[in-house]
């Protein structure tokens, strides 16, 4: 048993209100269509489509970042995780907030200042263009494929949990939901590009954020704002742990035998806490949020505000999770691994009946669709920009815009077909694997690119492909694949690692990058100087040889646009070349 379609154990679905959920989801989808459609008129160049013309202000961008963090697994499952596993799950929630600081301190400002569309635009300053572009595309598209499958799985889960009342997972409904919702999301991206995706994520952050705030207020109101009583009740009503661990103390995930057939506790949970912190922000599709900012400063501000919002948001989720077990009792929440995602809908149903639970269903469906859309535009960006650059193609802006729109449809539909086929098998292992890749390839490659003078092409290659290889091998021999009742092949056992690969693969990614770099004689001090000056100041020296054709060398499309609008628009970034 692994994913959605392989059917979690049956559960008496007492909360779903399908009719109301549909009645909420459809108007919300139409509202998104309206937002996306309104964004459509402003799209004239490839940069308008992929980067929203770099005109997204810090406040809006911070909300969109929040929207990008809110997923089925990081909101709905995590609440049930806290209700069931208490303190150790709370640490896991904390790890998400702690990880967001990496975006503030390291990624946001420099990556926006260096500019461009993908990680490849940073890599080319430190390595030869073709391999650097291919490395960026490989990381982005591998990450995309895995995460996209997981998001399709989430669409299926929302459908079976909140748009259906049967105790068994309704597989045909899940499949139909994936196709319909997936197509709707593809259409959103096709119409509105990044401006549309940004508005959609802002709407989503506001909807989910308000829902969570209201729910927290209701939970706290039940306890007359007395958090001590809430915690006492949570402890008293908790699902008893076989080994006797309290809900509010460590042990339920750290203790011996927390991981089936494993002697590697407490390292298993520890490795997850480390991996999320170092890898969670290293997702290429989150980097898009930096590139769309008006300046490096705005990127930094939006990352900073998003980190603060995140810290507040996750604390509310913890209160809701503990409130759920306090109010509903041990039997009222999801009592095993597969049923953690039922805790939130049950609590919502308990408070507000079918209207509230239907509202939750509708909002949840729009939310997972929004993530799918945000990932799709990232894949299209990397596919178009990195691959074109690697092949040395410089399409005219108008032709490129057409190519981008076509890629949205092609990549979207291929994803839907291939993804839906993979959902039953891979959903469970893919989300952690993406986080591990963030730790083992993205973090070392970017930290070396930004801070190490000596870093070069071979170092980049070894980091990216070495980190990728170690991660994939470790996942293949992990308890997600075999040797665990919840694994892909529960009946065979060739697992070696129960620990999360990120803990090992992260440091190894750094080691590979170091070894690759020092074994190669390539060294580009001027490249390092250019990268540092650009990353820290946002300055760009326009090529001087011939201003009109010279600017076509820049990796952005807008500079070639003859009309003045591109210049005017980019003045917000205070870059004379209008390119970065």
């Amino acid at each position, binding site marked *: 048993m692994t994913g959605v379609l392989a059917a979690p154990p049956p559960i008496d679905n007492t909360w779903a209100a399908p009719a109301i959920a549909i009645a909420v989801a459809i108007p919300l989808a139409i509202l998104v269509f309206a937002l996306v459609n309104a964004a459509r008129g402003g799209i004239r160049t490839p940069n308008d489509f992929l980067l929203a013309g770099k005109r997204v202000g810090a406040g809006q961008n911070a909300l969109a970042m929040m929207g990008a963090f809110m997923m089925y697994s990081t909101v709905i499952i995590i609440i049930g995780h806290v209700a069931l596993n208490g303190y150790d799950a709370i640490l896991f929630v904390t790890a998400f907030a702690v990880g967001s*600081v990496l975006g503030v301190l390291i990624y946001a400002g420099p990556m926006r200042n260096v500019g461009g569309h993908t990680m490849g635009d940073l890599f080319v300053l430190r390595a030869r263009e073709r391999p650097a572009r291919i490395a960026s595309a490989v990381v982005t598209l591998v990450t995309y494929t895995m995460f996209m499958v997981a998001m399709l799985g989430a669409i299926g889960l929302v459908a079976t949990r909140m748009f259906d009342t049967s105790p068994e997972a309704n597989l045909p409904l899940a499949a139909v939901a994936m196709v319909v919702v997936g197509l709707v999301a593809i259409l959103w991206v096709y119409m509105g590009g990044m401006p549309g995706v940004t508005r959609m994520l802002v709407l989503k952050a506001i909807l989910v954020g308000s829902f969570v705030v209201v729910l927290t207020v209701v939970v706290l109101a039940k306890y007359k704002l007395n958090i001590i009583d809430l915690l006492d009740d949570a402890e008293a009503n908790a699902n008893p742990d076989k080994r006797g661990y*309290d809900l*509010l103390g460590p042990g339920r995930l750290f203790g011996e035998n927390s991981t089936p057939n494993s002697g590697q506790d407490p390292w298993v949970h520890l490795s997850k806490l480390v991996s999320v912190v170092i890898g969670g922000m290293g997702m290429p599709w989150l980097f898009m949020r930096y590139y769309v900012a008006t300046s490096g400063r705005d990127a930094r501000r939006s990352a900073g*505000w998003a980190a603060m919002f995140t810290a507040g948001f996750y604390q509310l989720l913890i209160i809701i999770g503990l409130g759920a077990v306090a109010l509903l009792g041990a039997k009222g929440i999801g009592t095993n691994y597969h049923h953690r995602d039922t805790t939130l809908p049950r609590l919502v149903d308990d408070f507000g009946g079918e209207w509230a639970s239907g509202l939750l269903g509708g909002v949840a469906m729009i939310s997972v669709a929004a993530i799918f859309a945000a990932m799709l535009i990232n894949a299209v960006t990397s596919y178009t920009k990195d691959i074109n650059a690697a092949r040395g193609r410089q399409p005219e802006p108008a032709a490129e815009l057409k190519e981008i729109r076509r890629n949205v449809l092609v990549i979207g539909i291929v994803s839907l077909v291939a993804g839906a086929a993979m959902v039953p098998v891979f959903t469970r292992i893919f989300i952690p694997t993406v986080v591990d890749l963030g730790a083992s390839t993205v973090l070392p490659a970017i930290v070396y690119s930004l801070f190490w003078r000596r870093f070069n092409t071979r170092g980049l290659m070894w980091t990216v492909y070495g980190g990728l290889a170690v991660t994939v091998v470790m996942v293949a021999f992990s308890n997600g694949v075999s040797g665990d009742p919840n694994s892909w092949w529960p009946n065979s056992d060739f697992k070696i690692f129960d620990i999360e690969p990120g803990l090992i693969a992260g440091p190894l990614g750094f080691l590979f990058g170091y070894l690759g770099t020092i074994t190669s004689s390539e060294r580009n001090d001027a490249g390092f100087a250019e990268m540092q000056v*650009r990353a820290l100041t946002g300055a760009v*020296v326009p090529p*001087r040889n011939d201003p009109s054709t010279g600017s076509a060398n820049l990796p952005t499309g807008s500079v070639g646009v003859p009309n003045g609008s591109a210049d005017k628009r980019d003045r917000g970034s205070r870059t004379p070349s209008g390119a970065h």
Partner: protein
Amino acid sequence: MGTKNSAADGDRYVAVFDSAQFTALRRRSNAFIGWASVIFYGWWLLVILLAAFAPDFYRQDLVGPINVGLLAVFLSFNLVVVVASVYMRFARTQLDPLSERIRADLEGGLR
């Protein structure tokens, strides 16, 4: 675009990079990021190592049901807010004016 720059453009970056102003900016920025990362992630590592290997320390009650472990979580969340806001303030007041000057010199000199 790095690989496509003419040598003259590359030289301009190198000249800025070697300037005293830029060296000061780079030092300031790296020092803050380095120390903030070490302190912040060091704290987090301590929090999770204690949870894994000294759980009894975390189980000690402080006020009612609130134990040392929950306090550590609460402090971690607040530290996220503190580090983010202190860095934003530091960058705004200590880095931005300097980087703005360097940028104006570099780009202005070309006009």
